[in-house]
């Protein structure tokens, strides 16, 4: 008798001891990786919309300005989802009988609004304000990506707090001249950092306050 274990038990014992340390570490790392992945942040997810509105067509092909439909973006926290009325200013003239626009026509007729599925969102304890970002030279495409290429709207950035902080800590990486805010084709110039710093000074942005909790949470 005497031996309780087979020789392989020695290796297993060592593996168990290593695992006691390795498994939790790996689990934390994996969790972080998954939570930060587009899968968990809902990035690049398109959602079924009542009307399959294409930014690629309206912005990319037709070259409409963002503010044409998102009327509140310069004035209010919410950029604003256009009312059916705004859709129909054009579509009462063109594509008046298109099948895909039937819900919009029904909405206008009944006065019942369209129910769009939200694509970009932050938690309700984050008080994001479009107007101030737009006013201080943060372009639409910084957060919303190349909408002119999106047939269906999708979330282009992770919208996590860490992602927000990246810009709030170093806005010079992203800031652009106010005139270019709505230019979806704007690309970062090679001397962006120098330009960005100048713009920060020019726009009187107090960067120290940007990472205060109270900037976004209250």
């Amino acid at each position, binding site marked *: 008798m005497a031996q309780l274990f087979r020789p392989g038990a020695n290796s297993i014992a060592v593996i168990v001891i290593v695992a006691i340390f390795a498994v939790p570490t790996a689990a934390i790392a994996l969790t972080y990786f998954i939570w930060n992945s587009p899968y968990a942040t809902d990035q690049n997810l398109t959602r079924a919309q009542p009307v399959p509105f294409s930014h690629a067509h309206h912005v990319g092909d037709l070259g409409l300005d963002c503010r044409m439909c998102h009327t509140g973006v310069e004035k209010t926290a919410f950029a604003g989802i256009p009312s059916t009325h705004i859709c129909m200013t054009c579509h009462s003239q063109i594509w008046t009988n298109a099948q895909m626009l039937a819900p919009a026509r029904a909405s*206008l007729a009944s006065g019942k609004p369209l129910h769009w599925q939200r694509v970009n969102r932050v938690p309700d304890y984050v*008080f994001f304000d479009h107007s101030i970002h737009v006013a201080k030279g943060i372009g639409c495409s910084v957060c919303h990506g190349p909408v002119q290429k999106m047939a269906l709207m999708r979330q282009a950035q992770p919208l996590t707090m860490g992602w927000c902080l990246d810009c709030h800590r170093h806005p010079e990486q992203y800031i652009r001249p106010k005139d270019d805010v709505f230019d979806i084709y704007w690309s970062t110039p090679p001397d962006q950092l120098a330009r960005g710093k100048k713009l920060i000074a020019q726009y009187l942005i107090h960067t120290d306050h940007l990472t205060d909790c109270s900037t976004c949470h209250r």
Partner: protein
Amino acid sequence: MPSLKTPSELDRRVALKLLASVMAATMARCSRPDEEIIPYANMPEGLVAGEPMRFATTLMLAGYGRGFLGISVDGRPIKIEGNPKHPFSLGATDIFAEAEVLSLYDPDRSTAIHHGDAIATWDEFAADWGRAAQTKSGEGFALVSGRIVSPTTLARIAALKSRVPELRWYRTEPVNDDAARAGSRLAFGRVVTTLPRWANADVILSLDADSLGHGPDELRIARAYASRRGNGAKRQRIHVAEPVWTLTGAAADFRIALRPEIIREIARAVANAYGANLGTPQLPDYAKDFAQRAGNELMAARGKALVLAGESQPAQVHALCHWINAQLGAPVDYLPSQDTVENDHAFELAALAEDLHARRIKALIVADANPVYDAPDALRIADGIASLPFSAHIGLYRDETARACHWHLPLSHALEIWGDARALDGTASIVQPLIQKLYPTRTRDEYLAWLANEAVTNAYDLTCMSWQNGIAGKFDAEWRKALNDGVVANSAAMPLSVAVARVPDLPRTPATRTMTIALSPDPSVWDGRYANNAWLQECSKPFTKQVWGNAVQIAPGDAQRFNINDEDTVDIEVDGKTVTAPAILTPGQADGVIGMTWGQGRLNAGRIGTGIGTRVCAISSHPFARALDGATIRKSAHTVPFRSTQAHTRLQGRTEDLFQIATLAELAHPEHPPKQLPPSLLSVPAKGEYAWAMVVDTDACIGCNACVVACQSENNVPVVGPEEISRGRDMHWLRVDSYIRPHGYTERRGFQPVPCMHCEFAPCEPVCPVEASVHDREGLNVQVYNRCIGTRFCEANCPYKVRRFNWFDYSGDQAYADEGEALKAQHNPDVSARGRGVMEKCNYCLQRISRARKTAEKEDRKIAEGEMVTACQAACPTRAIHFGDLNRADSDVSKLRHAPQHYTLLQELNTRPRTTYLRRIFNSDENG
């Protein structure tokens, strides 16, 4: 203020019916359900989604209108603020105005016509009314209402009278001015409204006149009062003689507590000094000193001296005061009374009872009044109504009177209606809706117009009709301006020139040995009409700090005499009727006087108000009497809990350094130089772009609680309910601490509003393990709710105990009284609703700072001085709360920080608060 366009005004509200806030409430994030965005089908013109808009409107207290601004977001009224252009608001609010926005969404509001207990249709009511109204002359028809000074409503009553000529209108307001009316008749031979020009008085003697207490004139007087505070020569001196504490008494420089019948002797003493020759006043020695000093000072300040009498004093005292004021050349205006009914209120109520029991009434309409609750039981109003063939009640709630009547018709809330009102001086203002009617209700005018068979029965048209003639010619522009300003220009009445014919007689009353009950409206729920408002029920009363109930205030001497301890439950008996309530010992109250308040003990108020407290109005056979003699007091066999938010109003230990007091004399010659900041190992923080700070002037503060309710409204502060209060929990971000300190033959009282101190060396921050309590660069001590895990270390380590913890989900699933979702419509969308297990506290209205900053930054400028106003600051009728940027040397707060009366609460702890105080100053030559 946004400009308003009249006709499309209505379009806007129609659209709001389809309201779809872009800000759909997000659910808990963990499961991330899909979320919808619902835009407008057709965006209403002028509306900016998610942005607050302000509309001028009018709210009524005791029938008189006061102009306010309603703040509305996405079509939901969320806040009431003062209207600077209205002379009876002057930009400030009181607790009742602030709380109306909660009443609007009250799920207990009546939403349907009732016949008995059953829901009925309009047609059924119309048929019954048709039958009742068949007699052409309208014999036996009666209308009961409170005080009505609205031109449109008066026109409706006139119209109703033309339909039923025999209509008898009983106008009876529970908190009324009967004594003043009688005194005015005695002095001038007619009823006039007396409006003191408080700001013009150097010396004021108040004979139990609670001018700074709640009422339609409070805000106007409070502002004038504030303009004469401070440490300079402009300061006025106030003498008050009163039986129980009032806000005016607490604000006085010299105060004396006397039984009501002795107070008139003071009037006699003062009048004698002017040669009235009314006989020797019978005063105790200390009262003689008081009377002499007050009399001398009044005399010396002739032309700038004022004497006022309160409702507890008989007509003769009022008349005598008019006479004294005439001798003094007092700054006081006499205006025609807006209340056109000649009879007094108590008389009308008694008449109603008599006519009911004498069967002189056959059909009764009660328009927004609650006589069944208000009237003493002895009048048996409910029995009288029950015996009628037809009775209908129009009201916001199915209250006591509604249940006595056959019919109940639901009334629209003031924030949903068109209408008009006049203020005390006749200033007219329009009642403008902020939201379309939430339920199928009608306004008082609409009901009356329908009952009168008028052609027009729509409130908007009715209101317009009243003013088309009044603002003749250029109606459109003037109307728009009236809506925009919240005041109809030049509508105030001209002062009358009246004279006091002769020295009124002042009969002596035999000194009674019995206990006298001094009655007053409840400081929180007024005459009971606000009893179902949870904010007001949980708004602690200025002196007792009681919430959710009413108490009996007795002087410590009497307590000893009757062997009653603090918070014992007592029975008060008068005229064979008994009420039971907890007793609270109140130093500085006159011996032999029991202080009680009306307004509680509602039987059918709703989920919030029913059964709270004791119905004091039951006991007297004299309706609305302010003083009842012959009361007895004894310990009760029952136990009624006393609930308060400050258990220790009678502070043990030394409080001199907490609530600091100075006399004017001391400030002129300060004994000690102002305290230097204690040294600290910590470096003085570098100031950010702004350095926000608050200075609270305890000298200006009158303890009216407007700031408390304003804060609650602005910041989505939940109520916790009586059970939680009994467990010692409350949620107010801003509390008003009450201090009392013996002084000579009386006590000195004061109020200290305590919001978060926003300490620079905040003790709460380093103890938070997760950075939920942190500083921002502008000096705000902020609480990040979504980061908070609820260790409560911050509150444990807060020397000021200003933090509030959500023990339960007070604003969600575990809300008091479980009233459902409707109340959430009131929530300010700019402020997070805090969930269970999270600490919260005052953040200097961070949402307002944020908004101000963004507005300024978009214009590439800094926030201007005075641009950023906190909710409490905005509400304060005495402008006691100052807020601003310490980085500006010329800002209000920077200057006040150098005032000689400036001090820091618990300075020795060296927490370096950003909220600091100004001392309470007594205008006295003595020291201490």
